[in-house]
């Protein structure tokens, strides 16, 4: 899991904290270029998390990401650049997605079709299998409760430690472990059921 966490964190761990502090300070003083640099640094985190929380609906995920960054811009003056910026961003992302899930009527997720697997360029069969698996997992994620899904996405897909997930979601570590374990069991059972149907 540790290895996964490091891989998932990607380039974010390489970026010095001091550089981020400086960027936030510049953005606070109205430097749009600095704010854009923050966007570039965190857009994958925010959009990816939103996509997984909202169920592969790219347009909604883009809306959510925009809202998150606009909230960031509005809250820049109150933001303590020395505190954990990523956690704050995750928390806002989860909150924005939760609000969107509560008010929206889901649109069909057609937008991702054209962008799939470009970076792999695998064979056609492999591509099809991978696409089916992804859809299966997205369908499985849809069976989870809002809290289970958030805990699972942050822990298993973003690679955040359970304690930090609890902090982001504003709950206890025990609760997060409960949500994560029940979510994993539900997904495993859903995948199992679907696989049997196909046979």
């Amino acid at each position, binding site marked *: 899991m540790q290895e*996964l966490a490091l891989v*998932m964190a990607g380039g974010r761990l390489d970026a010095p904290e001091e550089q981020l502090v400086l960027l936030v300070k510049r953005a606070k003083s109205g430097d749009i270029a600095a*704010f854009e640099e923050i966007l570039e640094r965190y857009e994958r985190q925010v*959009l990816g998390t939103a996509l997984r929380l909202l169920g592969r609906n790219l347009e909604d995920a883009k809306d959510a990401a*925009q809202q998150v960054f*606009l909230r960031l811009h509005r809250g820049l003056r109150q933001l303590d650049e020395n505190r954990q910026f990523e956690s704050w961003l995750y928390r806002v992302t989860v909150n924005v997605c939760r609000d969107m899930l509560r008010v929206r009527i889901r649109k069909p997720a057609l937008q991702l079709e054209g*962008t799939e697997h470009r970076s*792999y360029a695998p064979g056609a069969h492999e591509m099809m299998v991978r696409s089916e698996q992804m859809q299966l997992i997205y369908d499985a994620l849809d069976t989870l409760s809002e809290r289970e899904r958030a805990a699972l996405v942050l822990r298993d897909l973003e690679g955040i430690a359970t304690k930090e997930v609890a902090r982001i979601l504003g709950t206890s570590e025990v609760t997060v472990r409960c949500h994560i374990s029940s979510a994993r*069991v539900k997904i495993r059972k859903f995948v199992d059921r679907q696989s049997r149907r196909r046979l």
Partner: protein
Amino acid sequence: MNCAEFEERIALFVENDLYDAEMTAVERHLETCTDCREFAAGLRESQAMLRGLRREPLDDAIFADVRSQVIRRVSNVRPAPMWPKYAIAATLLVMLAAAALWRTRPAAPVGVPAVTATIGPGPALSASRTPAPVQAPQIAKTTGRHGRAKSRANANVTLARQNIRPSRPAHPRAVNAEPLVVKLLTNDPEVVIYWLVDQNGG
């Protein structure tokens, strides 16, 4: 503990999310339970599929689109202008200065009888001016004077001291301050303008 109760522990076990003591307990159970071993194998498989979402590629154009939208909206947001703060501060200063002047003003003359006077040119315009030009000492000088204006007067002005006293004076010295009523008679007999002058500068 039966197998159903082990399910959620196994779900944490497969990702090393259990504490050491719990790990040992699950390992021991898995050694003896075939069903739970199968369940654990299935969990590892579904977890691997789940992690596959991490590699879901997203086109750079999608990020560029989000970024440009945000930057466009953020660029339109200008910081709140500072001038209202300065305007409020300036207004407060003026009010404070006016209050200070009010307290330090000279006492108004007491017991001045009712006076009337005729003021020369442009009374219609004078009616709309601030009452500052009409000072209490000047009124005293004009006491008892009547007459018409030499130049083209288009209105007669009557100054009269009225016995109007404020019921609750704002300041002890204001007790003696009586308002001066300026009556402007225009060429139209049906139009009479009354101009109430506060001699205390208010």
